[in-house]
């Protein structure tokens, strides 16, 4: 495409084609399959192959289409099969189910009831995606197009509004584009929530022969997959956002820094760049506008600290991914010493929407200081695990119970960790707090990039703090000694506590160390390293005390603190546990329980190594953990 007129005509055609597919124009039907990492690993490609074979065998190629789309977000219920125009959603589909779906639904228009989603709270079967509680409170801005378009087809992306925002941006002045983003109130989705428009205006103001836009796709927060799903579901939107940012600040080159752990995201991004170059949307003098832009991909190599923007720049430059002192900020001196803006994947994915629909529309939802939506990767002990995009200001209760469907197996909610290893946990008292950048910080956690891990009564909070400290200690780049040594010492203390060797002084030392590391580290990794400890100490001091004073782990997670006991009256005396015990600490007693024929056994706690082998072998549930 060489002109905007050609682009307009193409968009018009593509919109008609995609709408036709969704609405079933000419009586055609479309089968969509989720092609996110979760569903692909659960054989969604085999399901696709089976559908394609059935379509071919029945000569229905002109009536039914079948293709992969981006993540549906509802990962715990995958693999999904969705059928248009009815918008019927089948979940947990196996290859063996394909024939039935084809025979009943595709051929005869009957719904296959047994594959419908069942609401966990009411037991009701739901056929349409929009009627499922998980989706009701969601609003898709950053995830626009995900789960609808084929992420490997530029034409389908254009059918869902791609490049309309770019075209509008290119008709405006650079300043006007920045003002539009400022007016939208968009704040960086990577965690800190810095206003994106402000960042852009700094880079715009710096004169230079070359400037860069860098997209931060180094999603390191363990338990978070927002950026992966966006890149897998609609890479065109992120590229469009990057181009708009490039135009606004005067950059002609863009770099994606994506984790090497995300091969599908990288492949789809590569394909999108190729298709956009072929279509003339990337390259020289784009559609006669005078604006040129090219995008490149760089892969991470497994270092969490590279999510920090200056460490990321060092990594692109082929160096160890260690943070640089700021100032100078990247907007002044970034990649190869040139003015650079580093924006997160989700931030860039919001930009096309803002330019297409207008800043006001974007700012319609949200709270006073946090506009728009936020994508969360809801995981852990919650019924509906998946990717959700909610308006800012939604409460934690709505997130966990209405969208998440509550806690599985009737267990009790204990805490939700937001912000990953840099964040903190929020407890029952915070459930009715609206989610936004400032509110979560005020409550002792942070928004972070969007990881939201729900924990129930079976999770030990001291163990969780130790888990995060292990992570941070491993990932500390080693540049600043407070972070390098401080995290190691904090980990040692936490390990002591979880093994029953902690003292009360340890708690004071933890707090003291936490403050020191926070105050004296160069980058956010160190500055926030102690957050999980501080927040668990604030909310769950009783659990720390149980480990230190009573030498007990209330959630029965910390292995060394678990006591194994045989309930004498339930013991049949079969001796299986004694055979399984690797250290021979189980002996027969002289006692025979009422109604049993053999003498019961007992465990010598002083010799027990807490391996749990006896518990696993006992068929009579006579062994319990205390």
């Amino acid at each position, binding site marked *: 495409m060489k002109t905007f007129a050609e682009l307009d005509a193409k968009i018009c055609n593509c919109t008609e084609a995609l709408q036709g597919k969704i609405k079933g124009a000419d009586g055609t039907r479309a089968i969509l399959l989720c092609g996110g990492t979760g569903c692909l690993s659960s054989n969604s490609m085999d399901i696709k192959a089976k559908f394609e074979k059935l379509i071919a065998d029945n000569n229905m190629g002109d009536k039914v289409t079948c293709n992969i789309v981006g993540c549906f977000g509802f990962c715990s219920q995958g693999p999904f099969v969705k059928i248009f125009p009815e918008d019927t959603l089948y979940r947990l589909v196996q290859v063996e189910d394909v024939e039935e779906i084809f025979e009943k639904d595709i051929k005869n228009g009957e719904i296959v009831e047994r594959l419908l989603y069942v609401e966990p709270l009411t037991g009701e079967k739901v056929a349409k995606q929009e009627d499922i509680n998980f989706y009701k409170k969601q609003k898709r801005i950053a995830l626009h197009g995900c789960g609808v378009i084929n992420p490997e087809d530029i034409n389908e992306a254009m059918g869902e509004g791609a490049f309309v925002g770019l075209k509008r941006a290119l008709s405006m002045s650079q300043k006007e584009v920045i003002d539009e983003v400022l007016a939208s109130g968009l704040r960086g989705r990577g965690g800190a929530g810095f206003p994106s428009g402000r960042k852009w205006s700094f880079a715009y103001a710096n004169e230079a022969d070359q400037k860069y836009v860098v997209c931060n796709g180094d999603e390191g927060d363990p338990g978070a997959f927002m950026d992966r799903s966006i890149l897998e579901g609609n890479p065109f939107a992120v590229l469009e956002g990057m181009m708009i940012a490039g135009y606004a600040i005067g950059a002609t080159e863009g770099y994606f820094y994506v984790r090497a752990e995300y091969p599908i995201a990288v492949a789809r991004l590569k394909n999108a760049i190729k298709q956009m170059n072929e279509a003339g949307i990337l390259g020289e003098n784009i559609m006669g506008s005078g604006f040129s832009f090219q995008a490149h991909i760089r892969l991470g190599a497994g270092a969490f600290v590279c999510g920090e923007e200056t460490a990321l720049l060092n990594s692109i430059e082929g160096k160890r991914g260690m943070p640089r002192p700021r100032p100078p900020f990247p907007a002044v001196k970034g990649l190869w010493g040139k003015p650079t803006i580093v924006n997160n994947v989700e931030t860039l994915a919001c930009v096309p929407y803002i330019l297409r629909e207008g800043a006001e529309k974007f700012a319609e939802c949200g709270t006073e200081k946090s506009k728009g939506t936020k994508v969360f990767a809801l995981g*852990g002990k919650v019924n509906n695990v998946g990717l959700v995009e909610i308006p800012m200001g939604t409460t934690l209760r709505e997130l966990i119970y209405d969208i998440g469907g509550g806690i599985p197996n009737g267990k009790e909610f204990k805490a939700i960790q937001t912000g990953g290893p840099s964040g903190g946990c929020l407890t029952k008292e915070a459930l009715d707090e609206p989610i936004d950048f400032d509110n979560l910080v005020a409550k002792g956690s942070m928004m972070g990039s969007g990881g939201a891990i729900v924990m129930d009564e079976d999770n030990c909070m001291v163990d969780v703090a130790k888990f995060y400290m292990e992570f941070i200690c491993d990932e500390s780049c080693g540049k600043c000694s407070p972070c390098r040594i401080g995290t190691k010492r904090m980990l040692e203390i936490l390990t002591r506590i979880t093994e029953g060797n902690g003292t009360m002084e340890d708690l004071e030392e933890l707090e003291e160390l936490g403050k020191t590391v926070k105050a004296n580290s160069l980058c956010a990794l160190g500055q926030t390293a102690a957050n999980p400890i501080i927040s668990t100490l604030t909310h769950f001091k009783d659990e720390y005390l149980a480990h230190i004073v009573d030498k007990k782990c209330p959630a029965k997670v910390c292995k060394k603190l678990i006591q194994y006991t045989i309930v004498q009256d339930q013991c049949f005396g079969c001796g299986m546990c004694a055979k399984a015990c690797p250290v021979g600490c189980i002996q027969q007693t002289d006692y025979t329980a009422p109604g049993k024929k053999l003498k019961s056994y007992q465990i010598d706690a002083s010799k027990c190594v807490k391996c749990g082998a006896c518990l696993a072998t006992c068929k009579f549930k006579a062994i319990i953990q205390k």
Partner: protein
Amino acid sequence: MAHISDAGVTKICEICDRYANEKTPLMMILSDIQNEYGYIPLDVQQIVSEKTGISVAEIYGVVTFYSFFSLEPKGKYVIGCCMGTACYVKGAQLVMDKFSEILGIAPGETTADGMFTIDALRCIGACGIAPAVTINGKVYPKLSVDQVPGIVAEYKALGGGN
């Protein structure tokens, strides 16, 4: 130190040449070598140094910084246990312990026959199917401890190793 064949040297030079037009190609060169050979020993770093003019000290610094780059060869089957938070709270530690127990190696180690390496991975972003394990790229969803022996047996049956 492993001896590098002429073909190996040619291949490494070819990888370096792929990025001749890039400003700072080191990470890309090392990624390709890691993917091609599974590790980046010192004498390979030496060749990269000669080819690119970057000092061996700097290359060694980069190789040892990133967890994806390895100085030692890995097993034929690399078992990557996701230890991200979502997997961890759903029992990933127990699954990894089981692999360790069966294979007799700790995470990060390789079996003596060169068949298996266990790696504790950071999040692989497959939180919806936690706990997840990848073996040479194939993702195993929602693994339980009971499934582990079967999976190991499956790969053992495929054979290979030293």
